[in-house]
C-alpha cells in the first residue's frame, strides 16, 4: 500500500487514472489499527485491479479535512480523481464492507 502525504496525495489520488482506495487512519484510532492487517490482505488479493493507499491523518490532518474526512476509520474510493464511494465509522467499516467497496468499484 502506498503511504500518502501532502506531497504525493495530488499525484497518487487526485491525478490518478482508474480506481484508488484510500484508508484514512490515525495513531489513536484502535479500530483502524485492528482493520489494517485485513486491509493489507485485501490490497494483495485485489492487487493490480485497484490502487491501494493509506493516509495517516494524525500526521496529515489538514489534508484529511480537505477531503472532508473528520472521522475514523474512513475508506474512500476515488475514480479518476473523483470521490465515488465512502464508508465511515467503526461499525460500518469491517473486512466484509471494505471488500464489497472494492468489488463494487473495480
Amino acid at each position, binding site marked *: 500500500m502506498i503511504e500518502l502525504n501532502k506531497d504525493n496525495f495530488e499525484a497518487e489520488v487526485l491525478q490518478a487514472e482508474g480506481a484508488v482506495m484510500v484508508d484514512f487512519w490515525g495513531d489513536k*484510532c484502535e*479500530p483502524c489499527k485492528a482493520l489494517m492487517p485485513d486491509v493489507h490482505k485485501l490490497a494483495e488479493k485485489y492487487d493490480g485491479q485497484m490502487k491501494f493507499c493509506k493516509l495517516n491523518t494524525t500526521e496529515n490532518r489538514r489534508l484529511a479535512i480537505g477531503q472532508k474526512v473528520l472521522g475514523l476509520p474512513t475508506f474512500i474510493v476515488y475514480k479518476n480523481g473523483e470521490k465515488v464511494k465512502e464508508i*465511515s465509522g*467503526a*461499525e*460500518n467499516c469491517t473486512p466484509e464492507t471494505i471488500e464489497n467497496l472494492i468489488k463494487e468499484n473495480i
Partner: protein
Amino acid sequence: MSKLYDVAIIGGGPAGLAAGLYASRAKMSAIIIERGKWGGQATTTEELENYPGAIEHPTGPKLMERMKNQAEAFGTEFLKDEIIGLDVSGEIKVLKLGKSEIQARTIIIATGAQPTLLGAPGELELRGKGVSYCATCDADFFTELEVVVVGGGDAAVEEAIYLTKFADKVTVVHRRNEFRAAKSIVEKALSNDKITVIWDTVVEEIYGDGIVEGVKLKNVKTGEASDFRTDGVFVFVGTKPISDLFKGIVNMDEKGYIIADEEMRTSIEGVFAAGDVRVKSLRQVITAAADGAIAAVNAEKYIEKNFH
C-alpha cells in the same frame, strides 16, 4: 474433528478477556472470538481513571492490551472471526463461523454494547464528517475548532473533558438539568473554562454541506428552537446491546440485553453472559471484568458437574 474447548468466549472486550484469563488460569481450554477490535469499547477512551490501580493514566487501549497479554500468558487462544450462528441445543455447543465451526462445553457471551445513535436528521449522512462516537479516534481533527458533545452520562462528561485538550471550545448539550455522571468528574467538567453546558436541550438536527456546520437545538422546557454553529458533534447518549445473534436463544429484556443471574447463567444451561451485553445497572470496565471472572468460574463448575 475439530478441537473441543471447555469455554468459547464470544467477544474480546474486558468481560471476554477477564473470562479468558480466569478460565485459562483454572486450566480450562479457552478461546476468545472477536470480530472487531480486541478490547472492545474500552479502546475508544483515553480516560480510564476509575479503574482501580490504573493511577498512572494507562488509557483504554493500553489497559486492554495488557489484559489480552495476561490472558494469553495463561494460555487463552484468540481468534479474529465473526460468528454467524450457534447451536446450543446439545451437551456440546457449536459456534458457526464463515468457513468452520468451534465446539465447546460452555459458551460465555461477552459481545458488549455499542453507541446508540442520536436519531437526528443529518446524523448518518455526516458521520465521519464531523459526527463522531469516538473521541479518542477523532479528537485530533478538531484541534483549535469548536465541538458539541451530546449526552449527560459518564461517557459524555469524561469525553467532553478529554476533548478540551484539542478543541478550543466544548459545548455539552444535555436534555436534563443535571448530569448523571459521577460528581467528581462533573465538578471537573464544570470548572473547565473551555466547557459550557446547555441544559434542558436536545439536538433536533445536524446540518452541513458535506461537513458539519451546525446543529439545530430545542429547549425541552420552553420549546424554543435555536441554531448553534459548530465544527463537530460527539454523541454519547447511551449504548445498545450487541445481541441479535442470540435472539430467540437466550432470554432477553425488551431492549435486547441478555438476562443472567448472579452467577452469569442465562436461560440456557452452559451458556453464560458477561459484561455490557447483560441486564445490569452499571456498565464499566471493572464491572465487565468482574462478570467475566464470575462467568468463567461458573463455567468451570458447570463442566465439573456435567462432564466428569
